[in-house]
């Protein structure tokens, strides 16, 4: 049985190029902080990786802080701004559709006395730039809006928000780009983004490496104190192999980002068309939307059962969002609730997430599996 892995928004397999780079990286064992040659060699690799990531982001300046993953980068952005600008005001703006690594950080700040506005999405899963900007006050220190939503693929109006916020130089703009980085072709140049979060294992690097981009001149406070690595923003000896792998994955992703987007869009369209033919299926189509993510609800079925039923035939997808499978309990997705879906729809929601290496044939085989398994499950009801 040839497996079809449509869960790339949860994590991706290592890219072959990344595997090679990773294996080679283990010979570069020096501590980048060492004065001697071994240190210099390792430091050169970090420098190269920073260039690779910047290039993929479409920026030529600014600081890149490598972190232990996307969650840490999001936390660093939110808490780093809060610590640095406590005196500037006491208000922040975010949305109701953020990933828990952003949302939970804001909820922690609320317990510390900050005021946070959570902007709700429209029923298609996107927040409007106006709604976000309307929430900004003279007291606002940070606005944080994700680039591509991990459950629906909805692309948020980052450029509109970022450009408008440029008129308010004291408001920092953070974007969680974990599902966008290396996929959305535009990059972030000229979008008015001050802080941007990336994660390695969503683009073919291993788990445990991520990064936070800071536009030139943006200052935040660190979460970790120590040897002052990463411009003092992330002390601790650098994860050299992880960073090399991340740089390589970014380079690969950036190489044909436009062509890949178009390819995946073709797959996504075929998938959406096929799903729409199935009984009880509603496909969620925010506009604009990343083709890498397709969310669909099968009303009355249990997402968890559906996931296992598809898995049994070799197709891997996830329920609404893999991050909500905590200790086996699937919590009702806050994003889907915010979009106004009924509980029966939310329970029956699964997420397909594609990779550039997938083919139209994969999509057709996947659709055949979904169709037979959904019919089988529907048949068991009465």
């Amino acid at each position, binding site marked *: 049985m040839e497996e079809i892995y449509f869960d790339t928004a949860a994590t991706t397999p290592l890219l072959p190029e990344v595997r090679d780079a990773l294996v080679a990286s283990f010979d570069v064992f020096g501590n980048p902080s060492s004065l001697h040659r071994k240190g210099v060699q390792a430091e050169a690799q970090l420098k190269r990786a920073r260039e690779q990531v910047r290039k993929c982001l479409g920026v030529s300046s600014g600081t890149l802080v490598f972190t232990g993953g996307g969650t840490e980068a999001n936390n660093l952005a939110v808490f780093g701004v809060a610590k640095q600008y406590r005196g500037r005001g006491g208000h922040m703006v975010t949305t109701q559709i953020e990933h828990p690594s952003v949302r939970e950080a804001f909820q922690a700040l609320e317990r510390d006395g900050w005021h946070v506005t959570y902007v709700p999405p429209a029923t298609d899963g996107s927040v409007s730039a106006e709604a976000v900007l309307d929430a900004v006050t003279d007291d606002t220190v940070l606005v944080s809006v994700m680039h591509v939503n991990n459950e629906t693929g909805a692309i948020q109006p980052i450029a509109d928000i970022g450009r408008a916020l440029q008129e308010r130089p004291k408001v920092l703009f953070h974007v969680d780009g974990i599902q966008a980085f290396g996929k959305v072709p535009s990059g972030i140049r000229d979008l008015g983004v001050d802080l941007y979060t990336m994660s390695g294992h969503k683009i073919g690097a291993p788990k445990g490496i991520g990064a936070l981009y800071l536009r030139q001149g943006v200052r935040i406070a660190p979460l970790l104190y120590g040897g002052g690595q990463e411009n003092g923003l992330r002390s601790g000896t650098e994860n050299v192999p992880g960073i090399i792998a991340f740089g390589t994955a970014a380079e690969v992703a950036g190489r044909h980002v436009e062509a890949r987007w178009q390819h995946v869009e073709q797959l996504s369209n075929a998938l959406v068309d096929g799903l729409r033919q199935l009984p009880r299926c509603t496909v969620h189509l925010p506009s604009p939307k990343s083709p890498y993510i397709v969310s669909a609800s099968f009303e009355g079925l249990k997402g968890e*059962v559906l*996931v*296992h039923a*598809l898995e*049994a035939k070799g197709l891997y997808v996830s329920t609404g969002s893999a991050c909500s499978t905590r*200790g086996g*309990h699937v919590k009702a997705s806050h994003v889907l609730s915010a979009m106004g879906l009924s509980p029966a729809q939310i329970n029956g929601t699964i997420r397909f997430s594609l990779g550039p290496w997938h083919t139209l044939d994969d999509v057709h085989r996947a659709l055949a599996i979904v169709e037979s398994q959904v019919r089988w499950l529907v048949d*068991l009801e009465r």
Partner: protein
Amino acid sequence: MTQHIIVRYGEISLKGKNRAEFERILVRNMKQKLAGCKGVRIHHTGGRMMVESDETQVSNVLSRLQNVFGIVSLSPAKVTGLDVDQMSTAVVDTLSDAVKVDHARTFKIEVRRANKRFPMQSLELARVLGGRALQAVSDITVDVHHPDITVFVEVRDQEAMVYGTKVPAVGGMPVGSAGRVGLLLSGGIDSPVAGWLAMKRGAEVEAIHFHSYPFTSERALQKVEDLAQILADWGGRVHMHTVHFTDVQTEIRKHCPDSLGITIMRRMMLRIAEEIGRRRKLLALVTGESLGQVASQTLESMHVINAVTRWPVLRPLVAEDKVDIMRRARQIGTYETSILPYEDCCTLFVPKNPATRPKLAEVEEAERALAVERLVAEAVERTEMKTFTARNGE
């Protein structure tokens, strides 16, 4: 220095002609449990068991043996020469420990003189040792009626033994002394406890689990395997049979009335378990059912479910309250695993209105829509076996 531990196994010493066999099994189980403890020797002579171990290993050996079914209590003992001074030192040490550790305030000394050539009589020796102890140990007095601690002195042919504290052990009968049973093991709280109780009465347990992938996940199966492992840690070894039950459940779903779904499912489980039992030469089935706990556990349900088998179905928890079962699950270490939330096959396919008082005739009628024999045969054919052996605290 070598330390001795006295092993008491109360109940099995009552059983006349089977006794030698029980003791052989107990020694085997103890050896298994003590595997990897260096320098440990088990002596078994004349109706008493003694474990000899290096001093550094004593607490390790004690805690392992406490969990061996069949052992009632244990006492670390000091071995001395046949000399009053040496015995006295051992008595004083034992009492000092009891004062320090158990806050004992009163004591008595009981002497057993198996060696009649020893020049002092029991009462006299007790008086001498007690007198010396009173001088040497502060904050303690004699109370011959209700002492906090009794120090036993056994005068034997070659040596004397002195011991005080009795460490309670799990009790019961040695696993393997009562034959083999099939435990219907789910991921819930009850069935692992039922299996543990069967082990405690000497049964060797083989677990039978019904897995309904994709209606339950691999994590749910992993959880049940973890439970089987915990049972194996107690009983030495557990074979687990995983029955792929999905087809049976979907057939029931398709062909039988919703309200009887659970009853028929349980009947199919028993049929399949009995067939596995027959092949594995088991003698009984064990379930975690407790009377009246849920809809399928009313007497009417049990009556109808039980009607498919002539095998003994043991229900060790039948009269237990839920809180007591939960307490026991915590004691034996299965609770934390059991409460992990992965659904097992009983919680899916749950009808809206299950029949709490099904009638045998209506259930048999409903089952005529099922190819019972074929479903049982196919399920047994697809059953996989996995073996778990005790980890012994590794």
